[in-house]
């Protein structure tokens, strides 16, 4: 095993220990793994499977079922466009399309320079500010198509 592999074993091991290796906390554990690596690396999923004595197929099915997990590396900045109903009736789709055009990617994709990952979310519960775009957890409310470029420029 290489050094990188040992690191993953140690890191994942300590995440599993935080939950006393309780199998029922798999979703929460995967969330912590993703917070650590920004996505779910294959090696980490294998570690989770061995560490919990849960078949890898089960870990994989959970990792692919829930929307918040990604099996591919994501960009440095995560853009989440809210497509909740309140944002939808206030024109969220036009904002999303503008970002798609600017970055040349579709939701779920990452720009080639690994700068941005574009995703959509069903509702962030801040409907008064709709339409909303969340970048790295920062909310930008009352979005308009002409506010998209200035927003993206803030990140490098």
């Amino acid at each position: 095993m290489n050094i990188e592999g040992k690191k993953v074993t140690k890191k994942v091991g300590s995440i599993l220990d935080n939950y006393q290796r309780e199998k029922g906390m798999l979703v929460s554990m995967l969330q912590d793994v993703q917070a650590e690596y920004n996505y779910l690396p294959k090696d980490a999923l294998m570690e989770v499977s061995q560490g919990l004595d849960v078949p890898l197929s089960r870990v994989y099915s959970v990792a692919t079922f829930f929307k918040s997990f990604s099996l591919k590396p994501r960009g440095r900045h995560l853009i989440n466009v809210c497509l909740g109903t309140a944002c939808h009736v206030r024109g969220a789709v036009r904002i999303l399309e503008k970002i798609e055009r600017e970055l040349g990617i579709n939701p779920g994709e990452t720009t080639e320079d690994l700068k941005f990952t574009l995703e959509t979310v069903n509702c962030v519960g801040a409907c008064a500010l709709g339409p909303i775009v969340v970048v790295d957890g920062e909310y930008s409310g009352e979005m308009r198509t002409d506010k998209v470029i200035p927003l993206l420029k803030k990140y490098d």
Partner: protein
Amino acid sequence: MTSLGSPDELETLRKSIIKSRDPNKPCITICGGTGCHSFGSEKVVAAFRQEIKTQKLGAKIDVRTTGCHGFCERGPLVVINPKNIFYQRVNAADVPEIITETIVNGNTVDRLLYIDPGTAEKITHEHEVPFYKKQKRLVFGNNGNIAPTVIEDYLAVGGYAALSKVLFKMSPEAVIEEVKKSGLRGRGGGGFPTGIKWQSCRKAEGDTKYIICNCDEGDPGAFMDRSLMEGNPHSVLEGMIIGAYAIGAHQGYIYVRNEYPLAVRNAQIAIKQAEEHGLLGENILGSGFDFNIRISRGGGAFVCGESTALMASLEGKVGEPRAKYVHTVEKGLWDKPTNLNNVETWANVPLIINEGADWYAKIGTPKSKGTKIFSLTGKINNTGLVEVPMGMTLREIIYDIGGGIPGGKKFKAVQTGGPSGGCIPESSLNLPVDFDELAKVGSMMGSGGMIVMDENTCMVDIARYFIAFLEGESCGKCVPCREGLKRMQQILTDISEGRGKNGDVELLERLSAAIIDSSLCALGSTAPNPVLSTIRYFRDEYEAHIKDKRCPAGVCKELITYRIIDEKCPGCGLCVKACPQEAITLVQKKKPVVLDQDKCIKCGACYDVCELGAIEVK
């Protein structure tokens, strides 16, 4: 902090907290809910703390960051107690003036007051603002008074008194009887009587039982559970502990969306505080009753709002529902009897115990008791959370509390009940809102989302939006939901893109009936609601799309065109710059611009930047 070992110790602590607080000392409360936070309330809090330091007023003023006050539209909100002075849209720059004028000199800062759009009058006090005036904030009211991460605040407003009463003065059966008598029904959507659910779970065979708090609020446009969990987590915990005692459970779970980081954090803090105070854990308040709560974070799957799917997810499996031939109160989590209620339901419980079932049952309609929190969003002036007694009419909620539709537009419909609810037209605005009345008009209560739509909202587009949402969230386990919704989505997309055919509406109706009858869980069996209700009330819009290839609301891209109104266009050139396709040209200065329809991609950029209304969509 030493652990509280008896009800007396709890009351002694409560008294000492209340005694140490001067009710006349000015307290500046700043809303720290997600809405106000997004508007920058954190900077306002920092500015208050700094200014108080600068003016050396630290000993004379309290500053408190509270949970959501509800009036998100006007955030960041600041309320100065005990005078109840209400300032809205407060910036960090306003802070020195507020301290000097209001706190030191006792004057109001007029420009920060809320102006009643109806009468154009300035309103000084929070309780006089029309948005709050008609509400009955029993469950949500303390959100604005307490800091969610300070257990002393909750104790000061009577927190955990209901728990103490239950543990020492009531048998579990008496608690269940009380909840049954109150008429409380599940606030998560189903509306099942809470007391009866508890009773079934208590009676179910087995020594190990679980209770779950569902905070997987997946309905887009609903955020009351989040606000309660963020703003008053102890009220939810108290309700859960009471429920656990009544049912005979010793382990509970809070299943919360990972998209709600603040709710996760505040719930964690509250659990730790309750444990330290002997209100949670072993031998609660010296009663001999043990109960623990763990938090489990959801992974962003709408179907996990369904109880059996949620329980599967709690077991570390894929969140797929199962058929409920055997109810979860008999065989739920890990096949043990499990009682699941949502956040708002749990938060109602301490209130019922404290005030009594008879008092509670006086509020509301014959079959729907108490209050309900709605999140009022969409095309409405006052977006926010409103708590009203069951039975208030839609008209009162939308116009008196919500302040009507912005921009003088015409009301078209209100969508209630989340993605699987229905759209209710203007003709039903006098409907009293309760579980049964909403069902009668083809919608439902759901978790309490209320999305207002105006004349610029296309009902075909809305139906397509919800079906696309539900198709994406369908777990795929049963065929009617997985394939049926996909087919419905195709038909609706065809209609909205101008490929609709005669008979499509009838086909949608037939498909809907089949999906309702044969789906495995509530996600599928309620999914056709938005389509059926829009067909029922807005058939003419479907017809316009299918027969005339026209979108009357001007939304469906393939059926609309953008046009420059020459009389209104001064040729300022803003839209020329905004257009990503170079489809608009300024031919001559100060003359109307020209739009090339062949190049136009209908992105709406020009429409957004034009402040003169010189661009129309038809």
